């Protein structure tokens, strides 16, 4: 067994500036996150980047303090290389490069989506699941096959989380979970565009149609019920297809929307039909966080996936199937 190493990870793709310190054996020593909250409307990339710059130095110190280690104990520095918003990504990348040079330790460029999956596998114990990655900016159905996380389905336009958040904000009740909470008082379902193509989904028409229902004077609780039930049904159905197709026996939900109670209920009902087990990432690791970047960085360090500072560009459109997942065949499928 190799000696335990420690990796510092920095997350800064969107709202969250996160710092995690995790060992190569999977011990999470620190997970410190600062979330930018826009005064109104959606996220503004430059303002978010400013928020991240402001908290950067403090965050590193706080993470080290919580982990109870000195900077010299760090064996590698990981950062979220994408996908995400350029200005936000650059804050984390710049900080990581500086730390790696200063400490003279390897730099690790991590894919944000892969990190959501890996932290999910670490904390839930899922081994080889079909993954539904659902968040404000991402909707993906993926599973490990032949050395990579292959994309089986994805949104053709906006993300599921984005659709529900934008609806909540436009409707004046605020983003998730508010639309789902209001939906509990809904009584009547109104038909909305249900766009599923094989394992792909599309939500933009649905959002427009739901807002139109509101304008027509339909009860907001009923519109909330209609939009959440439609979005979750679409996700569950495509996930069911992917499960049947891959013949896997585990489902893992990751990303911010994995917190949804109703979605989880539906997926559990579907999994029962296929004798599959459902794992859900706990709330602390559902949203963007530093620990997931540190842990994935640790896996990359073990399998030699390091990057030179000169080559460490951010990739706002980084796809998860670009990453060679070398660590999955290191020892079985851990």
């Amino acid at each position, binding site marked *: 067994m190799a000696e335990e190493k420690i990796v510092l990870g920095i997350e800064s793709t969107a709202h969250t500036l996160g710092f995690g310190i995790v060992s190569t054996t999977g011990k999470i020593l620190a997970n410190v996150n600062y979330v930018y909250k826009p005064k109104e409307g959606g996220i503004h990339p430059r303002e978010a980047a400013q928020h991240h710059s402001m908290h950067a130095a403090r965050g590193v110190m706080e993470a080290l303090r919580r982990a109870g280690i000195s900077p010299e104990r760090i064996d590698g520095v990981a950062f979220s290389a994408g996908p995400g918003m350029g200005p936000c990504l650059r804050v984390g990348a710049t900080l990581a490069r500086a730390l790696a040079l200063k400490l003279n330790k390897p730099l690790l460029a991590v894919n944000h989506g892969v990190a959501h999956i890996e932290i999910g596998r670490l904390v839930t114990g899922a081994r080889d699941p079909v993954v539904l990655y659902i968040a404000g900016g991402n909707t993906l159905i993926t599973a490990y096959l032949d050395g990579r996380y292959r*994309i089986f389905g994805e949104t053709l336009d906006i993300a599921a989380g984005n659709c529900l958040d934008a609806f909540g904000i436009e409707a004046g009740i605020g983003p998730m979970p508010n639309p789902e909470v209001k939906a509990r008082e809904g009584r009547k*379902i109104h038909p909305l565009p249900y766009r599923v*193509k*094989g394992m792909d989904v599309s939500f933009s028409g649905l959002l427009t149609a739901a807002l139109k229902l509101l304008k027509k004077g339909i009860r907001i609780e009923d519109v909330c019920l209609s939009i959440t039930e439609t979005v979750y*049904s679409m996700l569950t159905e495509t996930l069911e297809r992917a499960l049947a*197709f891959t013949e896997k026996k585990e489902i893992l939900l990751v990303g911010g929307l994995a917190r949804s109670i109703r979605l989880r209920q539906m997926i559990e009902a579907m999994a029962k039909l296929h004798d599959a087990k459902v794992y859900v990432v706990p709330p602390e690791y559902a949203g963007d966080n530093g620990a997931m970047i540190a842990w994935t960085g640790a896996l990359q360090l073990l399998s030699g996936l390091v990057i030179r500072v000169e080559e460490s560009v951010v990739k706002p459109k980084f796809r998860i199937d670009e990453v060679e997942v070398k660590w999955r065949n290191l020892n079985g499928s851990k």
Partner: protein
Amino acid sequence: MEEPKRIQVIRIGAEAIVSKLRWNGFDLISKHRVPKPYRIPELDRWIRDKRTIHEAKILVELKRAGVPAPAIILLDRSSSTIYMQYIKGIELKKALDELDPVRIEKIAGKLGEIVGKMHLRGIVHGDLTTSNVILDETEKIYLIDFGLSSVSDDVEELAVDIHLLDRSLESAHHKIRERFMKHFLLGYSKIVGRDRTLEILRKVKEIRMRGRYVKRGG
């Protein structure tokens, strides 16, 4: 009139159960879209109804376009079931193992014409693999399973059909793939035209590069 009798379940898919039935001396196929317990019943009914009607409409439209596909016999909306003609024959996937090269070329060309006619009518199959092509005893070709079909003349969607067919040959019949696709495309371009075929082929190449459909439908 006697009630149809189920004699065999042919396929249990993620969405529907396909069975072979016997009814007054005829063989029929039924495709029943099953309720999903995870959806609210109202929404579930609505989705199954919409899809069943969509598929039925496509089957009728195919007949009009002269594309050989199962004929609809009965549509039962209350149970989301389509009853259709049973086509006696074998899947192209299995037939390819036994046919000689000359006949393969002929079948590929003919399939190209059929898919061309379908595309010209703005219908995309959505799951065009060699398992969804049936050869009857006279080597007449039929397309089956329009569960994922759509109405579109978007180059990308048409290209996905061609790509999926190519993929299914690559995985199970890589030795004859090139020959098959060459004759398929000759037949296809006879119907849709050379320029349109080239445009679609460029898109097929792009999809392939994206690596997006690597493990789907193949």
